């Protein structure tokens, strides 16, 4: 314990971090709460000196707004599909990486690259890969994906351009998000695997386990704290999905023919900002927070039964 007379020193060392937290985290949280519960709060009008009544008008506006449920659906769908898929893939990849010696470090670096690459840049590359250019007679395609499909004799698909279907868009989004989510999950899971006592594997070998049984009966249960961690952070990240859509589709949040179709919760919050409609944005942010909180609590509850520490 620190001598109580010397505690001011401890506070002094903590002060820079505390000041930054107060200004950039604590105050915004309080301010969000305040703005959300002031009816029709608007930044510009507030500066002009207008007073607002306390109420839940903002929340009503959010829920009554028809695009809100589109955003909610898109967000939930992306979460529910991408989190399990990326976790499973990350598990298989890291277990493969863990069992090879040759090129392990090199491949580890390759798999980690997306993590240190700008999401908007990746989104633009994806947009180029799935691109399609239509001329009058023939379909010309610039994207490598359609080129590959055509090389194998398939029909090119309109993935992201004007006139594309919702599910074609979603497939691209899912591939992008999964690919973008893999490096962090692989990093965590591979680290977890490398810290599992080798004796368990020796014991399993002597007991005659097959490789798949070792993976599902030994590795996965022993890795369950890490798996729970990547699933929970995956859901939280999924609910905040925004940049990926901007990266591929631009600020339209959808193909040219259907702008806004792929909008997400965070996108919805940002939409309110140019109009200084801070009240609505704050209310939406609180709703998103509530959803993430509930989903995380469910996650924790489920993992309590499944996680072995």
């Amino acid at each position: 314990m620190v001598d109580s007379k010397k505690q001011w020193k401890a506070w002094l060392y903590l002060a820079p971090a505390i000041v930054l937290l107060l200004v950039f985290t604590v105050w915004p949280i309080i301010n969000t709460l305040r703005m959300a519960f002031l009816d029709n709060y608007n930044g510009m009008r507030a500066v002009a000196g207008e007073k607002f009544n306390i109420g839940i008008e903002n929340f009503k506006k959010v829920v009554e707004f028809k695009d809100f449920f589109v955003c909610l659906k898109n967000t939930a769908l992306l979460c529910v599909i991408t989190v399990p898929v990326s976790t499973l893939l990350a598990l298989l990849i890291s277990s493969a990486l863990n069992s090879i010696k040759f090129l392990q470090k090199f491949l580890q670096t390759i798999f980690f690259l997306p993590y240190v690459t700008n999401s908007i840049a990746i989104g633009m590359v994806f947009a180029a890969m799935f691109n399609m250019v239509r001329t009058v007679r023939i379909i010309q395609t610039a994207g490598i994906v359609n080129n590959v499909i055509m090389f194998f004799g398939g029909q090119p698909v309109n993935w992201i351009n004007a006139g594309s279907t919702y599910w074609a868009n979603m497939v691209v989004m899912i591939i992008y998000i999964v690919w973008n989510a893999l490096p962090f999950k692989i990093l965590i899971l591979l680290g977890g695997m490398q810290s599992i006592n080798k004796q368990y594997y020796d014991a399993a070998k002597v007991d005659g386990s097959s490789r798949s049984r070792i993976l599902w009966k030994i590795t996965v249960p022993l890795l369950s704290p890490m798996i729970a961690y990547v699933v929970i952070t995956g859901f939280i990240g999924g609910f905040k999905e925004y940049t990926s859509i901007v990266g591929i589709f631009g600020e339209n949040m959808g193909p040219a023919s259907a702008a806004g179709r792929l909008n997400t919760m965070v996108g919805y919050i940002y939409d309110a900002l140019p109009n200084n409609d801070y009240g609505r944005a704050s209310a939406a942010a609180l709703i998103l927070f509530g959803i993430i909180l509930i989903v995380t609590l469910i996650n924790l509850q489920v993992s309590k039964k499944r996680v072995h520490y």
Partner: protein
Amino acid sequence: MKVVLENLTRVFPNRTKGGEDVVAVNNFSFEIPDGKLVGLLGPSGCGKSTTLYMICGLQKPSGGKIYFGEDDVTDLPPEHRGVGLVFQNYALYPHMTVKQNIMYPLQNLKGEDKLTKDEMLKRTVEVAKLVQIDNLLDRKPSELSGGQQQRVAIARALVKMPRVLLLDEPLSNLDARLRLQTREEIRRIQQETGITTIFVTHDQEEAMSISDMIVVMKLGVVQQIGKPQNVYDDPANLFVAKFLGTPPINVFEGEIRGGMLFIGDDPVLAVGKPDRKVVVGIRPEGFILDERGPMHCKIKGVEVMGRDVSVVATNEASLNPVVRSIISAESKVDVAAESVRYSIKPHKLFLFDPETEERIPFEV
């Protein structure tokens, strides 16, 4: 099932440039008779665990052969050898209950060996009864004591009825009282099942107390193989003599002059050998308090241990810091006296070559 090791060798290549390879096990040949309990004994780094892992199949020998009965198992993977292995820290799967842990090897069986659920459960309960943990089947390993975990590990190794049971330092993680109890337990289980059992230990007392045979190793080379008492009474070299026995053997510089063995200036024993320098080993129980005995020592203290008394003394020729002798508690030691005199039991005294440390036999 007898186990035959033929010129077994394991070399760990040195990874640094110009360094020497490490020979963990060097040319080990030994036949373990069916149904015996054999202890591999030696200080750490002597290659005993490597030998065990080679028998088990987790490590590949660099040379030599391993036979189980008449089958050459040298190139077989562990799961096809029919071995059960108990790890030093048990390696129980922490996420499974005791029952699931024991049943796990059975669930791995494939093809015609495959068992029904009822058969698995029956075998699990049987083996749990054998090691007396059948009341703990639904617990997790973290809810068990060290001794109970050890039993679960043994049960898991036994459940698929292995041809050979291997134990790696089975008692090292237990406290003293439990160690005594568990080693008798291992002996009992081994005798009840009749499975050829090999275990590794650095604790000579442990090895001597339960083994039918012990193998003493040093730096990858087998020093001596035999029944525990024979190895103790008739050590092949100074290393074996020093390694076995608590308290350890007393070692002196000595010299043979005119057929008489001298320790310092004391003529200790007539050995009838040509004149030469020797190293003398005398077991602590080889000293007899004797007012007219030939050997002089300075008394440092007496430790009473109930049944016995341990006299701690010094002697200028001693290669150990102190000379420790164990005598019956009835014989009175005058602690106030400055010196003490002993005569020596001839069969508790061994001569060794100072250079090679090999035993020099002599007739009394």
